[in-house]
């Protein structure tokens, strides 16, 4: 009625005009309008530096580190042909030099992929389990949730310290029992690629399962409980309810979680540096860090190749999960 319109006009005219203008945009225009803040922010803080870094990757640092020269994509070519391996820490190669176990574990690419696949797989399963538990109603749930979140709140340095000391040769108590099970090398554990990778994966699972759990829990909490009534009456057992209702409905959330965990996992660096070292577990990010101070061009090239590899992995993931993941 008239009262409504009267009230409207009391507000500042400019604001109303702006609002009206916004409301009248088509979906597409409106979408792009709302995306402006994101793109400004990402443009300034991400796109610009990335372009610069990309520029850097087209230059080679001279022998004495004083100057640089334009080499085009040579840095990239050398990375794949092995020409850059000599700058990588501790005999690491970028792509495996052969298919022997040793050569594979020496390859930054392979180690990164192994780490990502194994840790993300475990984290997803464990995170899902934790989320399912937290989704139940029980007294003290708040505290159990706190307990499960805690690892995520632990800084990587501390996470590294915790596991480093657990497997440290002076005081570590965890090496012996695990070595007895054949999971770890009994001596020089943290400098043994296989063992160190195992420990780092465990450490990563410990910390980031909470990430998965939190996200999946949020997905679980958004499900319409009424659907479970329908399913129950239709005769679904607990497992079938999970399989047919819960799982498909949290799949988008799991998809996001897996996507981002995979991306994060493929950039693993901190935990390696704190528990073991980049020459033992040579992840791609390690290679970037190892070369950044002296060989910026190479480092930049590795960074871009890493991003490209992650991009390929993500595409694979998306294709595997189905288009609607995006």
């Amino acid at each position: 009625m008239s009262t409504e319109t009267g009230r409207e006009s009391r507000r500042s005219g400019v604001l109303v005009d702006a609002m009206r203008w916004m409301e009248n945009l088509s979906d597409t225009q409106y979408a792009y309008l709302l995306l402006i803040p994101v793109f400004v922010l990402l443009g300034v803080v991400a796109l610009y530096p990335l372009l610069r870094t990309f520029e850097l990757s087209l230059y080679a640092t001279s022998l004495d580190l004083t100057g640089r020269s334009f080499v085009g994509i040579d840095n990239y070519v050398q990375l794949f042909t092995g020409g850059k391996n000599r700058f990588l820490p501790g005999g690491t190669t970028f792509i495996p030099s052969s298919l022997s176990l040793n050569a594979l574990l020496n390859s930054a690419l392979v180690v990164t992929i192994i780490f990502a696949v194994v840790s993300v797989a475990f984290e997803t399963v464990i995170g899902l389990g934790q989320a399912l538990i937290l989704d139940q109603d029980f007294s003290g749930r708040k505290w159990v949730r706190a307990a499960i979140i805690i690892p995520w709140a632990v800084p990587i340095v501390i996470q590294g310290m915790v596991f480093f000391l657990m497997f440290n040769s002076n005081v570590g108590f965890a090496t012996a029992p695990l070595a007895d099970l054949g999971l770890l090398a009994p001596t020089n554990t943290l400098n043994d690629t296989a063992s160190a990778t195992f420990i780092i994966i465990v450490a990563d699972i410990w910390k980031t399962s909470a990430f998965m759990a939190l996200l999946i829990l949020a997905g679980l909490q958004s499900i319409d409980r009424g659907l479970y009534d329908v399913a129950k009456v239709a005769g679904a057992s607990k497992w079938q309810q999970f399989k047919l209702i819960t799982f498909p409905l949290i799949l988008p959330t799991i998809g996001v979680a897996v996507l981002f965990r995979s991306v994060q996992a493929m950039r693993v660096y901190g935990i390696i540096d704190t528990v073991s070292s980049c020459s033992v577990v040579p992840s791609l990010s390690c290679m970037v860090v190892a070369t950044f101070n002296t060989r910026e061009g190479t480092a930049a090239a590795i960074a871009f190749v890493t991003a490209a590899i992650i991009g390929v992995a993500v595409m694979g993931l998306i294709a595997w999960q189905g288009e609607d993941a995006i």
Partner: protein
Amino acid sequence: MAKLKLENVTKRYDDQGDVVTAVDDMNLDIDHGEFICFVGPSGCGKSTTMETIAGLTIPTEGTIHIGDRDVTNLPPKDRGIAMVFQNIALFPHMDVYDNISFGLRLRDYPTEEIDRRVERAADIVQLEGMLGRMPEEMSGGQRQRVAIARAIVREPDVFLMDEPLANLDAKLKVHMRTELQRLHKELDTTIIYVTHDQEEAMTLSDRIAVLNSGSLQQIAPPLTCYNEPDNLFVAGFIGSPSMNFVEGTVENDQIETKNFSIAFDPSTVDGVGVGDSVTIGIRPEDIYPGALRDEVSDPSSLIDTRTDILEPMGDEIFAYMLLGQGETSMSQEQATNDQLLMSIDPDSDIAEDEDMQVVIDRSNVHLFDTATGEAITHSLEAAWNSESVTEGEAESDD
């Protein structure tokens, strides 16, 4: 085998100290193969009762038997029921086919069998071409039909249907009703059905259960509820437009109301004496224009009224008649004593705001105890008359 028995079922919700009794000491005995309709005002506990039967809500007190099993604590899946939910609740991530076949797939039916049944169900609810649609792409009525189809493919022992036709148009409703009746016969199942549509309740059910504020008011065949309501609530609730109520006092040979009196011999009926406060109930179709007095089987004396508003409905006209000094008002409740609603033939020669005499069919006048609301008699002629229905229930003797 699929008898259903509710004993003393009570459900209370404790809403931050504020206790809501949704179902209050409900006792029901439903035979195998019966078609029962739950009716009652909004919020009276129909859905909650259904939920306790389905096992979705555990009653605060009482037990539930299906067949010979005590299912009170059994999970829904082991009760052999299918349910249509009031809120429809389609699975948003499944298309129509998957929604409908959900229960069958759970039970690992062979694909052809599933296909067959889904097709048949889609046919029944007239959704043939839409099996591939997602719920969000459908209209309200279409969604509701999917929900119905999802229940009927299951062919369970007991069907629970919570207002399954609320969003359908009249025509489709009639169609669906017929189909439900056919299914009922074919599958020989017990059906419990919530509806607020009187016609639906009347045509479909073997017995109607009338609920109010969580407690059962009457459970009886439709016409018994219509013709011999146990109490004021049922009388007022069943029938649309609803029964006219006029308060009166029993005298020696008549009942005296504010605006008219009606002959009655209290000695013909138990439990009522001279001086009692009673409420007279008269259905709109039992009031006739004075001109038709001869056609009425047991006519009352002529009553002076004035036509107020006329509502032509197509196949009949609702005429609001003012008694005495009654004021114009279309609302039924405000006018208990000063207004009578009459339903007459559309061809009748009647106009608004005219004086008119009416006559009441005494054989269909109901009498209720005003204080308790209990029915006293359903015919002023004598206590034995309860026309056209055979299984008349014993009158309550209060």
